């Protein structure tokens, strides 16, 4: 049990690290598209690590399935909304250029 808790803490800390890195990327990257790299990638991994850390402290299978489902839905919506945002930026850029 101590090993599981230790592993869980490692994953929770990793998740925290990736969330902080993502937030720093959001502040430091030079333009919107670069900032989207930080949001679309590091955030997903951070959430995955946090969810894995929480799962290691769970015994209820249904709760574990719910946590995995939350991550899966977040990944799907993040990839799709990232693509839609990129298209929106593209249209706005084209509109400004011509």
């Amino acid at each position, binding site marked *: 049990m101590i090993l599981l808790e230790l592993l869980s803490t490692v994953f929770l800390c990793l998740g925290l*690290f*990736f969330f902080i*890195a*993502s937030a*720093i*990327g959001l502040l*430091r*990257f*030079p*333009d919107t*598209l*670069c900032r*989207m*790299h*930080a949001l*679309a*990638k*590091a955030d*997903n*991994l*951070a959430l*995955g690590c946090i969810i894995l850390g929480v799962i290691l402290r769970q015994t209820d299978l*249904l709760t574990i*399935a*719910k946590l995995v*489902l939350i991550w899966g839905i977040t990944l799907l919506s993040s*990839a*799709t909304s*990232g*693509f839609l945002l*990129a*298209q929106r930026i*593209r249209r706005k850029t084209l509109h400004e250029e011509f």
Partner: protein
Amino acid sequence: MSSAPHLIPSTRAFRTLITFLLGLFLWKVCTGYDPESWILGIPAAALFTYFVIKGAGDGPRIHLRALPGFTAYFLLQSFRTGMDVARHALLTGQHVNPGFTQYRSRLPEGSPRAVFANMISLLPGTLSWSLTGDMHKIHMLEGNPLAYEELAELEARVGRLYGIELQEAPL
């Protein structure tokens, strides 16, 4: 490249059953142990099945056998990608050198190409910017000489997920 044949009735029935069971499972996960929730759960799973089967049409479908391998690849790439972004955010910051590249997809139109467009954002340093026909325009955080090979590898894996073997070399 191969396309999916028209489904024989037994395959369609099996697919409908699996989708219905998946709908029931998702309902159970969302609502917990309350048995009364099945009053709404069974019709909801039936509606879920109807929309999934109707929406998917007769195009290529995800092969469940290929899903574990693809998931493992996805998790590994997610970790690499997260590390790459963290490195850029913490070390490079404002001095990144972004740019664009293009990639012509060999996947058939529809779901495989859309999945590939979404998954491009999973690779380190690449973000799907637009999809016109079979041409993907990709935003890159920084020049990566291996980006083209990695895109071709990802495309081949998305193809295998749909049971499509890509023969020709990428353009």
